[in-house]
């Protein structure tokens, strides 16, 4: 019987092993892992710490015993693969419990070695109570420490998905939490103005957000427990630190065996998940991806992609050429919850699209996630990124208290099928008041984009508007009702409700630069048309209005 050997037993490894069994009953399937826990829900770890998930057992999808019983798959835990011998088709592994060296023969080998948290060499990083959060074992230690009640202050280093989920969960447990992010905003993979909306949500819930700074050192007490995180401007109390600056693919084993790495330093694979060495596949977080839009190498260590690649490799173990399964590329679609706010993204950011040489046009459009008369509707803000010439959809980000995963999935599907913004605007989407609006947020956003590209309206982004605040030549006009203006507006804006624009601006020079502000941009669009009709040459609307403006209001 042929031997299928898998190294790694979280998402991609166990997926590959169980799919291999479903493809063939005539093979031996063996899985090696150095960890104690297998097949666990790694993405659930922050919620385990937050006690949303009470017991670690809820995170464990399947035990080694279950794999044996249900699939006749041998899962060997505490077995660390230390060498691959491609010529001899063998893997050398060490039994970590007995220190015994064992050899495993394979006909086909699948590498699912995953990724590990990157820990920068910060002074004091070896102090007690500084953790990374990647495995169940780490999560258990963190939760035990929190359960002692001694953690009053915590610092999270890195404002990516894990960092923000941890910050939320620590805060919910009554721990005063600070997030330190090197970039000038949290969620580094998002465009700034969208990420700032999430950042505001963190701060409103009492999280200290320190951006544009790195932790330079940790200071401990005489017992060697961490007490402070030091940044250039702050000394932050910390009874516990979570390092979440990112992960790196585990490629050491592959490299040693002569397996080629890609530009992203993850294992290079073709669409069939094959490495450069025959009969060796790489799947999950250790493998490189292709960006579906650019066709260039990318690396998205995501559970959703891991499972797919595991399945593809398993099918290809047995497939004839014509039947081989493949993954043409991924978009890096993601979604995250931060307190009451949800954020989702697919495809390229504006920054990435510009860098790739596209003729980029973007819009920012707030909308309700369902009918405004159906209780429970919430706001979401959509940013759409597309190419001016071809109208090809390149990416989107959606942030808000409402449903964001549905519209981002619609756009992810559209990008996958090569849609233009025009196609997006005409999609026939499900509608009834409890679910959506007659003109869904996606369709509205596509229409605004088309209006902008057709020069029907000139918009300026929240970031540009913010930069112009100090420019005395620019006139900010809040065209909403006086009552709304009083509650909050952009600093320095004057209030001219839209009905009075004609009268009050009749003596204003027509070359005056004017930025029109309303709540979402729709009334400002009407006002813009009025001003254009009056002859104003340099009028523009604030895209996304007050709703999407992430800076200080007064």
């Amino acid at each position: 019987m042929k031997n299928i050997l898998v190294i790694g037993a979280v998402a991609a490894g166990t997926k590959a092993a169980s799919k291999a069994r479903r493809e063939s009953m005539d093979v031996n399937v063996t899985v090696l892992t150095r960890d104690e826990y297998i097949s666990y829900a790694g993405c659930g770890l922050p919620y385990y710490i937050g006690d949303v998930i009470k017991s670690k057992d809820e995170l464990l999808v399947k035990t080694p015993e279950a794999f044996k019983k249900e699939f006749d798959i041998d899962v060997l835990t505490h077995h660390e693969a230390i060498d691959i011998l491609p010529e001899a088709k063998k893997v050398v592994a060490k039994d970590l419990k007995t220190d015994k060296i064992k050899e495993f023969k394979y006909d086909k080998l699948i590498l699912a070695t995953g990724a590990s948290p990157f820990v920068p060499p910060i002074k004091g990083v070896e102090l007690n109570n500084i953790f990374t959060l990647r495995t169940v074992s780490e999560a258990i230690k963190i939760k035990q420490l929190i359960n002692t009640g001694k953690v009053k202050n915590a610092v999270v280093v890195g404002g990516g998905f894990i960092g923000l989920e941890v910050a939320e969960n620590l805060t919910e447990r009554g721990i005063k939490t600070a997030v330190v992010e090197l970039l000038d905003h949290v969620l580094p993979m998002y465009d700034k103005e969208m990420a700032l909306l999430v950042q505001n949500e963190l701060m409103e819930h009492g999280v200290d957000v320190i951006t544009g700074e790195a932790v330079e050192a940790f200071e401990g007490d005489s017992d060697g427990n961490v007490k402070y995180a030091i940044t250039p401007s702050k000394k932050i109390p910390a009874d516990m630190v979570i390092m979440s600056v990112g992960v790196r693919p585990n490629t050491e084993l592959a490299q040693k065996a002569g397996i080629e790495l890609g530009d992203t330093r993850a294992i290079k694979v073709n669409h069939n998940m094959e490495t450069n060495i025959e009969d060796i596949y790489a799947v999950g977080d250790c493998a490189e991806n292709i960006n579906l839009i650019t066709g260039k190498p990318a690396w998205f260590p995501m559970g959703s992609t891991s499972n797919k690649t595991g399945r593809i490799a398993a099918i290809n173990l047995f497939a004839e050429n014509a039947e081989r399964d493949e993954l043409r590329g991924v978009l890096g679609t993601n979604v995250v919850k931060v307190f009451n706010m949800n954020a989702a993204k697919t495809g390229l950011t504006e920054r990435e699209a510009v860098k790739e040489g596209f003729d980029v046009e973007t819009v920012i459009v707030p909308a309700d996630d369902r009918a405004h008369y159906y209780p429970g509707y919430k706001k979401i803000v959509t940013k759409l990124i597309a190419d001016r010439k071809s109208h090809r959809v390149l990416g989107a980000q959606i942030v808000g208290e409402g449903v964001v995963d549905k519209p981002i999935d619609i756009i992810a599907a559209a990008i996958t099928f090569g849609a233009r913004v025009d196609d997006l605007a005409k999609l026939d989407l499900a509608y009834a008041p409890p679910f959506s609006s007659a003109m869904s947020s996606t369709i509205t956003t596509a229409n605004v984009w088309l209006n902008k590209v057709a020069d029907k309206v000139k918009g300026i982004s929240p970031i540009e508007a913010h930069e112009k605040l100090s420019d005395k030549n620019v006139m900010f006009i809040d065209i909403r009702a006086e009552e709304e203006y009083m509650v909050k507006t952009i600093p320095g804006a004057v209030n001219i409700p839209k009905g009075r624009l004609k009268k009050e601006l009749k003596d204003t020079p027509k070359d005056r630069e004017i930025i029109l502000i309303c709540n979402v941009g729709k009334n400002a669009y009407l006002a813009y048309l009025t001003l254009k009709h009056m002859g104003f040459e340099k009028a523009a609307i604030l895209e996304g209005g007050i709703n999407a403006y992430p800076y200080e209001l007064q």
Partner: protein
Amino acid sequence: MPEKHINCRGMQCPGPIVTLFKEIKTLEPGDIITIEVTDFGFKKDINAWCKKTGNELLSLEEKDNVITAKIKKT
């Protein structure tokens, strides 16, 4: 002390705040007004509004997707 109840469910911005403004003008200091709103943006707005107008926000509750604010005119 007279209490007034207004229903702004289904109203989008600026509906609730503008309505509240109008209604509160008809009240005497010490009177209480309760407003029901389904626009979630109202939660932040009402706090800012009370601070700026000096009226007192007695309570702000969210139940079954309806926000109920109780305000005392000062």
